[in-house]
C-alpha cells in the first residue's frame, strides 16, 4: 500500500466512523418491525383491490372507446356543407358587429353611404378608396 493510499485509508476510516447513525436499540427495532408489518398489511389490502380496479379501468376505457367510435363523445365533428358567398358575407358582417359593438345587428357590416361622412372624411376616402 502506497503512502497516498495509507493517507486515504486514514481519513476514509474517520469519515466512516463519524458519518454513521446510532444503531437501533431493542425498542427502535420493535417499532421499526411493527411499522413494517403495518405497511405490509396495507400493501396486501391494496393488492386485493388492485385486480378489481384494473378491471374497472379496462371497462371504463372500453366504454369510452365505444362512445368515441359512435361519434357521441369526441371524435370528428359532424359534416357541414361549405358556406355560400352570401353566408360568408353575413358571417363577416356579424363578426364586425360583434367586434365593434353593433351587437349583431349587421348595421356596421353594411357599407356606409359617403353622404353620411363628414367633409374631411369624404376627402380622405376619396384619396384612399377612389376606384
Amino acid at each position, binding site marked *: 500500500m502506497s503512502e497516498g493510499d495509507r493517507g*486515504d485509508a486514514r*481519513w*476514509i476510516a474517520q469519515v466512516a466512523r*463519524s*458519518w454513521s*447513525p*446510532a444503531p*437501533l436499540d431493542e425498542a427502535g427495532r420493535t417499532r*421499526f418491525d411493527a411499522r413494517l408489518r403495518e405497511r405490509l398489511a396495507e*400493501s396486501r389490502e391494496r393488492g386485493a383491490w388492485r385486480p378489481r380496479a384494473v378491471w374497472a379501468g379496462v371497462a371504463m376505457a372500453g366504454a369510452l372507446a365505444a362512445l368515441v367510435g359512435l361519434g357521441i363523445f369526441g371524435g370528428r365533428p359532424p359534416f357541414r356543407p361549405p358556406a355560400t358567398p352570401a353566408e360568408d358575407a353575413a358571417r363577416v358582417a356579424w363578426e364586425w358587429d360583434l367586434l365593434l359593438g353593433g351587437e349583431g345587428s349587421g348595421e356596421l357590416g353594411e357599407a356606409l353611404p359617403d353622404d353620411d361622412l363628414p367633409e374631411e372624411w369624404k376627402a380622405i376616402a376619396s384619396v384612399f378608396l377612389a376606384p
Partner: protein
Amino acid sequence: MDATGAVAARAQQAVADEALDTLEARFASFVASHRERARQLAWRLVNGDHGAAEDVVQEAFLRAYRALPHFRAEAQLSTWFYRILVRQAANHRRWRAVRERLGGWGSPDAPDPSAPTPGDPALRARIGAALEQLTRRQREVFVLIHLEGFTVRETAEMLGRPDGTVKSHLHRALSRLRRELGDLREPEPEHQEERA
C-alpha cells in the same frame, strides 16, 4: 361439495398456509439480517436524515417482500434489495430537491430529535456538506465501496453500470473528497491509549 372435495380444499389451503408461513419466516429472517446495514446505508445516502432513511428502507423491504418468491438464493435477493434501496434513496433526494425548488411546498424533512447520532456534530456537518458536493453516482459509489465495504463488482451490479464506470466515479469522488476532508486523520493508536 362432497367429502373428497372438502379434503382436497383443506389440503390445498394447508399447502398455501405453509407456503405463506415459509415466506413470512424467510422475510423475517431477511429483515433481521439486513435491517441495520440497510438503515445505515440509507442514512448515509439521504444525508443523515433519520426519518427519510427509515422510509427508504421500509419501502425497499416492502418491495423485497413482493419479490421474495422469485428469488431462491439469498445473495441474489440482497443484491437486488440494495439496488432498490439505492434507487429509493435517489428518488427521495430528487423529490426533496423539487420540494426545495418549489419553496418548501409539501412537508420538508426535519431532523428526528428522537434519533440521536453519535460523534461530533460539526464534523458530521462537514462530511455531509462534502458529500453533497459530489454527483449522485460519485456519492453512491463512495458510500457503497468505502463506507459500506461492497466490492466494485457488487456495486457495479447494484447500480447497473460497468465496473470501469464505477471505478471512474470512485476516482473522481476520492479526488474531490480528498481536497475537502483529506486533513481528517484517525487518532494514532498511542494517542488512543493515552486518552484511555
